[in-house]
């Protein structure tokens, strides 16, 4: 995970978790309080509703009682209902309507003790129908009941009360009621936040408050808890409050999340981008490119880091300049010593020839021309070597890419030149070797240095130097073995270092040059040596491209 992603995640976590906990706590607390308040309100409203229904029932009872009292005193009623005179029949039939209207009732019927309807206000022409069960059922509902009746046009549900009166020893019953319609139910709702509903079937699920009431159904069966008035919110207030809290909580979370994301992106980019720039600039720094700047106008840690990197790069620039100068000087010295070494290797045979010629001129002048003739080739070979050396140095690097040479030829030339000096050198050359890749000069310099060092290791004592060639793998294996003093482990470890020498007057570059040349030619160099056991150098050179045997 990138630093930026971590920074982003950390920021969001640090913002959202506390906010979420805060929201959850607020929601829970508000929900609990709202529930408690809601329950309290519903409970209070139920008490009010119960009281209102009792009050309404009482008012109906008083009006019904008044009608009963009026009829008990009325002679026309007595004439028609008791004496059955027939003269007041139309008055009695119409009495129900007028009395019901006067009393502000929606249901009114007067019945005799047999249940025969004498007059009806809500259904004028229902007279003479027998409905004794109504009286019996309503008589058992002392506080009144919800009665399911009908008018001529429709069903009628009314909160009803029963009263009775006696005329001439006969009991008559008055049933009066107020219709439980939408207006009646709406008037029971005291709190505008709640509404009251009415029903006689099973109350709907989730109803908060329920006030049950006796009910007399159309079949005149009384159920003491058959009707109900329910208190409920048109839109569930509690659920609405919870939804509101949730909505605001989600809104706050989403808003915060958006702001946090934006802020986190801004912060992470503000922090990580300079770091990324510093990383990219730092990655571009090396010894060849120390001109990298680390500009920053920041005053924070990143600014400090940029300043440190800038200072470091500056110091590296200074050190690099000094190092390059030292390298240049060292390279010039190395080259001078190498040139000197190579020239000495080229001049040494010529010096041997001239010493020989001088000796012949002094000892046997007559043989001088013949000896000169014999040694002229050595002189010309050395001069040619020097000329090639000069050309190579003129190119500053030896050419070795496309050239090839015959190893046995080079071995013979070197051994011949060396043999003209001190010591004896033996050769064991395998015939038919393929040419190796590289210029002859390079192979010659390798052999000259190895053979020269082998001879030198004899320290002028009796011993032998043997040069062998053989085929090996894809190339040619040369070995130069001597019976000299050999090298200890420590000496071997430093034998190929520049300027390391154990010989008085030595340059310490011989084996170093060999190592470089073998590497240039793509070959390998291996040494077997031990103190007092002599040394054997193995050089394996690859076959020249396209060479065949």
């Amino acid at each position: 995970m990138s630093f930026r992603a971590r920074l982003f995640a950390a920021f969001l976590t640090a913002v959202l978790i506390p906010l979420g906990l805060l929201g959850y706590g607020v929601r829970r607390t508000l929900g609990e309080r709202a529930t408690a308040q809601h329950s309290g309100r519903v409970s209070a409203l139920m008490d009010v509703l119960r009281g209102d229904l009792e009050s309404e029932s009482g008012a109906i009872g008083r009006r019904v009682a008044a009608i009963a009292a009026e009829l008990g005193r009325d002679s026309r009623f007595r004439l028609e209902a008791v004496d059955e005179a027939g003269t007041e029949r139309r008055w009695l039939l119409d009495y129900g309507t007028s009395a019901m209207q006067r009393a502000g009732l929606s249901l009114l019927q007067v019945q005799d003790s047999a249940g025969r309807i004498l007059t009806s206000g809500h259904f004028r022409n229902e007279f003479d129908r027998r409905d004794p069960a109504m009286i019996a059922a309503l008589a058992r509902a002392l506080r009144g009941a919800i009665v399911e009746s009908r008018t001529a046009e429709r069903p009628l549900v009314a909160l009803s009360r029963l009263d009775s009166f006696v005329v001439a020893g006969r009991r008559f019953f008055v049933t009066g009621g107020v219709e439980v319609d939408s207006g009646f139910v709406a008037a029971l709702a005291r709190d505008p936040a709640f509404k009251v509903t009415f029903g006689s079937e099973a109350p709907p699920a989730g109803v908060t408050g329920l006030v049950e009431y006796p009910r007399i159904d159309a079949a005149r069966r009384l159920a003491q808890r058959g009707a109900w008035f329910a208190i409920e919110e048109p839109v569930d207030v509690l659920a609405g409050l919870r939804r509101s809290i949730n909505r605001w909580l989600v809104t706050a979370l989403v808003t915060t999340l958006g702001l946090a994301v934006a802020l986190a992106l801004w912060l992470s980019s503000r922090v990580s981008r300079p770091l990324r720039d510093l990383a990219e600039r730092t990655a571009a720094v090396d010894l060849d490119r120390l001109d990298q700047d680390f500009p920053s106008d920041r005053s924070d840690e990143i600014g400090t880091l940029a300043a440190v990197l800038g200072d470091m790069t500056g110091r590296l620039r200074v050190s690099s300049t000094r190092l390059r100068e030292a390298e240049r000087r060292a390279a010039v010295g190395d080259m001078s010593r190498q040139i000197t070494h190579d020239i000495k290797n080229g001049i040494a045979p010529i010096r041997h020839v001239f010493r020989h010629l001088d000796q012949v001129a002094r000892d046997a002048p007559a043989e001088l021309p013949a000896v000169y003739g014999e040694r002229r080739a050595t002189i010309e070979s050395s001069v040619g070597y020097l000329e090639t050396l000069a050309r190579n140095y003129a190119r500053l690097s030896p050419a070795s890419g496309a050239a090839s040479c015959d190893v046995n030829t080079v071995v013979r030339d070197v051994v011949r030149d060396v043999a003209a000096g001190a010591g004896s050198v033996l050769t064991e050359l395998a015939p038919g070797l393929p040419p190796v890749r590289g210029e002859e000069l390079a192979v010659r310099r390798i052999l000259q240095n190895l053979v020269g060092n082998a001879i030198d290791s004899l320290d002028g004592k009796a011993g032998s130097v043997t040069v062998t060639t053989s085929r090996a793998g894809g190339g040619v294996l040369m070995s130069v073995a001597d019976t000299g003093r050999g090298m200890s482990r420590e000496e071997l470890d430093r034998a190929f270092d520049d300027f390391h020498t154990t010989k008085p007057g030595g340059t310490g570059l011989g084996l170093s040059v060999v190592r470089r040349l073998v590497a240039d030619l793509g070959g390998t160099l291996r040494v077997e040596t031990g103190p007092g056991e002599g040394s054997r150098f193995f050089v394996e050179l690859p076959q020249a491209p396209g060479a065949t045997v």
Partner: protein
Amino acid sequence: MHRSGVKSAPFLTLAILACAPAGSPAVSGAPEADDCALPAAAGNVDTLLIAVADSIRPRRAPVPGNEAERLAFRQAYETLVRIDCNGRLRPGLASGWRSDSSRTVWTFQLRDIRLDDGTSLTARNVIESWARHGLADRRPWLREVTSASDRMLVVTFTTPEPAPVALADPALAVGVPRSGAVWPEPTGLFRFEGNGAVRRGGDAPRALRFQSGSGRDLRDVIAGGAHLAITSDPGVITYARGLSQFDVVPLPWSRTYLLVSPTAPPLDTGPDSASRRRFRMALARDAVPVDARAAEPPFAWETAFACRTDFPGTARPSRRVVYPESDATARALAERMVALAPSGPAGLVVTGLPAEALEKSLADGADAAYILPFPLLDPASCRTVPSLPAGTTIEPLVDTRQHLVLRRGAARMTVDGDGIPRVAP
């Protein structure tokens, strides 16, 4: 169609014809003594104020569309013949009439009735008046109407008629249309002008003025000076009877209320005619808010319904007992049917419908039963008969009548057979 207790013959002879001397085949028409005149002292008022409950519209003249127009138009537009309070056929625009031997072709001799432009009423005027309202087209029993001369009108019926009583239908009153005039030119005693009518000659009253009691208590209108009112409201009748200057005269029984059941009747009105009569009497006594009696034969509706042969509807049971929404008597009867129906409190309900909806419901047989008013005297026979589904049963319930409240000495009035009073000539 099945009717209560009686399998009716296609045609029943109306009582009206049995005592109709004017119905002879020979030309007749000599006026007889009018024993339908209402008692009135001398000293008629010059302008007779008539209380009506509805508005009166010239557009419909001379064909009445409500009770107010029925009363008003009767004063200005006459029919060829009329039926008096005793059910006798009387001359109207026609002074006499005769039929051919088939009794389908009837020839009417028009009286010399002067129109406002000085010309006399012609047979052509009558034909044009009927044609204007498409009256002849709506009467399948009327095959052809032609003029034999200016004052000879020939009416051909589709079936033999013992007397031309169908032409006493108030819907066949004649008014001569005049271009540019609001009201058709009258053929009766009065000519409409504005909100009233002016007598075209003769004695007082010289003018009629109609006071609409729409939305008002008719007692207020009477107390406000009205001379004449027609009502069936017991309260108004009781009130007027208490006023010494008014006479309250019951008009002829004019309407029969029928229980029409497309399927089985909602209740059993009795196993025999005697019990059914007792049932009807109880209805008339207790259930309706107007002066009523048990429905008595002869039943004009039987003749009327017998001529209907197109019963397109198919009865479907429903819970409603339907009545014309503005008819309190029909409503009371429907209420009583519901109260007595054995289906119990959860059974039938009453429903009032406007005329068009009621007609459609009847044609479809969409409801359980209907309480329908029917003219007790139906000169036009099939005129008011609606289409009914096959299998419909009809049970007569009660007859009703209205009362004339007339200020004493205000005017000399006579009463037609359908209970509508007219100013006596």
